[in-house]
């Protein structure tokens, strides 16, 4: 079975992002960029399935600026087999990405597509769902366990009330949650090997998709600064304070 893993280049999770002074977005100039952490989990899951002999090939794909190549190389260094870069300089919106991925999937015919449940830059949490809809494939989102079995896959989902396991027919779309696995560090030999693994460069036009954004961002602002907290001595005092603050009746 072939596994397709889409990965996104995002601001590194350690970076304290700043809003641009004109409020049009987050300042990305010269900040450290890395693979979206949820996507790292997706790559790791695919590698584990390959190590178990379930997957035969792992194809990683990224849609974004030319430098997304580095993110793909990271995935290759972790253990993916080949990469596809769809280059576009415009802001990538979920639907555009889903449409391109659907076309890639049609070409590649993977048995499973594993995506991060969301990217930590726009936190949209919808690309995987849109992709499943466009392909007409079953979806298992927020996965904390993925167990393929023949032509089906059992996906344990993290839902509000606890865990829910869905049994999907392959091919299917899975999105990862944090507890699915702990991604490995790339090993030195694999970093060296990654250099010679194939990386195909494409454009949205190759897939007949127009990437022009459809959403307009009206304003981006910093979250309100949290004001200092106070310590309370008793539960009664806490209830009193919450009442005064209008938080409880």
């Amino acid at each position, binding site marked *: 079975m072939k596994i397709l893993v889409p990965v996104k280049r995002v601001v590194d999770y*350690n970076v304290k992002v700043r809003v641009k002074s004109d409020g049009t977005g987050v300042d990305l*100039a*010269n900040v*450290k960029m890395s693979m979206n952490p949820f996507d790292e989990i997706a790559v790791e899951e695919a590698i584990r399935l390959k190590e178990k002999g379930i997957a035969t090939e792992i194809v990683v794909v990224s849609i974004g600026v030319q430098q997304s190549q*580095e993110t793909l*190389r*990271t995935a290759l*260094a972790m253990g993916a087999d080949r990469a596809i870069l769809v280059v576009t300089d415009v802001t990538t919106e979920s639907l555009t990405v889903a449409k391109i991925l659907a076309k890639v999937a049609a070409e590649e015919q993977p048995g499973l597509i594993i995506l991060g449940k969301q990217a930590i830059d726009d936190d949209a949490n919808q690309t995987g769902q849109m992709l499943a809809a466009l392909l007409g494939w079953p979806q298992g989102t927020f996965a904390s366990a993925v167990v393929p079995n023949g032509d089906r896959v059992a996906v344990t989902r993290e839902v509000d009330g606890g865990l829910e396991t869905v049994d999907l027919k392959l091919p299917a779309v899975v999105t990862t949650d944090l507890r699915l696995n702990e991604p490995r*560090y*790339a*090993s*030195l*030999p694999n*970093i*060296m090997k*990654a*250099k010679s693994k194939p990386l195909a460069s494409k454009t949205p036009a190759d897939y007949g998709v127009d990437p022009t954004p459809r959403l307009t961002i009206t304003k981006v602002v910093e979250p309100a600064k949290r004001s200092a907290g106070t310590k309370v001595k008793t539960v009664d005092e806490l209830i009193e304070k919450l009442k005064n603050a209008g938080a409880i009746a």
Partner: protein
Amino acid sequence: MPSYRAPVKDTLFVLQSVCKLDAHSNLPGFADATPDVVQAVVEEGGKFCEGVLAPINHSGDLQGCTRHADGSVTTPDGFKAAYDAFVEGGWGTLMAPSDYGGQGMPHIIGTVFQEFSASANMAFAMYPGLNEGAQAAIMAVGSPELKERFLPNMVHGRWTGTMNLTEPQCGTDLGLIRTRAEPQADGSYKISGTKIFISAGEHDLSENIIHLVLAKTPDAPDSVKGISLFLVPKFLVNADGTLGARNGVSCGSIEHKMGIHANATCVMNYDGATGYLLGEEMKGLRAMFIMMNAARLGVGVQGLAQAEVAYQNAVTYARDRLQGRALTGAKNPDAKADPLMVHPDVRRMLMDGRAFIEGARALILWGGLQVDLAHKAATPEERELADDLISLLTPVIKGYCTDKGYEIATTSQQVYGGHGYIAEWGMEQFVRDARIAQIYEGTNGIQAMDLVGRKLAMNGGRGLRAYLGLIAENVASGKADPRTEALATGLEKAAGELQAATMWLMQNGMTNPDNAGAGATAYLHLMGIVALGEMWLRMAIASHAALDAGSSDKPFFEAKLITARYFAERNFPDCGALRRKIEAGSAAMMAMPAEAF
């Protein structure tokens, strides 16, 4: 708890803009070091050190190593798992030649990983560090048979190495070695004696430990000329490469010490242990020096590394801690106090750190490049030049970078005020860990003597002449641009002080060697400032070039230029003072009768 982020961006800048890695792509091993591979190695290596090694630094210090009744030693919790991850990641194979399973990457890239790992966890990094040193000696002088039998497993990390020089009565003066080596009929030797302070002498990380031991054969002269080098494995190795019987070497005790608690410092007892001669009899010191030179550069890296991690945390603290008001008026009017960062004296501490660290990183990586060039450059002239330069600068990198490394670790601790003295904050560990780097691999006093007594005069002073010539070239290009003129002139003056001090030492050290000994440490520091200054000039020139080319990363290059200026203003003036100290000679120092102390 302190934190650590590998300085990936600054490292890539030094590799590309100061060391011009691309210009060397024709050298063996450099072809694979394309910019994207180098970036990936630096980034992923950094991630590994941040994520695997740094989290067990503080806990490892608290727990330390434990020696058990049977002589075995266990490392702190998490060290074995981290070491397994290190081996699995192949990080120990970075610089090793591909013949033995290495990745054959240039020394300069290996040096990057040395820095990151020694910042994240110095005690841990010493286990693979000593292994690398031992491999270097075996590679240089070992017989093909010994190389075949031992190197692949050592390169892999399944086995580790040590170096055994020190004995109770023998530290700096290796002529005093008493450990004996009796030749056996089968060509091996029986080694007997006691070694002390042996780093990584016994531990639970690897399946076998390969000790390199200095010892004397029966009829050898009782001086450094009589020393031979032996390979003594903890477990004997069968012809098929499997492990055999336990050899007659054991750990008698481990030391309780100031820092690097997670690295076992062992008394090693050799009781007729089987050893194999490395190289020739009585040529042991030469063989050991191959290892020592690489090891000394590695210790210089530790100085930089501990300064870096201490500085990083000091910066965070200076941003967060609110105390006092800026002299020029409140900078943080919403709160009751300003962050420490506003106080000039706190700035002094942070800028001292930054100016040293970035300069030292450039010097150390550039030095790593010279090691590569000395082995791999295309022409004999280029190889000779690189070898001259790194021979000259090895004691400077070891001595200056560890003296300053300790100083900056302490200065960074100072930024924390009283909290720096409290164990929980982790700053005092950096100070304790940094301290050893000034002592082992030849104390810094011995580095200074090596510089003044040997390196200056080597090959008729060819090394220093070449180095001063190189500085003059860079000064000329610096002066050609008004924006770097002041820096270049400062460096020119500093190099002038160095030259004058050299002349004085040559003349006055000849007539009275105590004059050379008395000025040696000041001279080493003087050359350290000049060497870092030269790097700062290179970095300033590169930064202007990047800004002129319209780099999108203006803040990075502008910060470089500010730091370059700070370095010059705050370090070059010391050169004149150091020169005067040197020229004071040894008279007052040696005048005091010994019994008057």
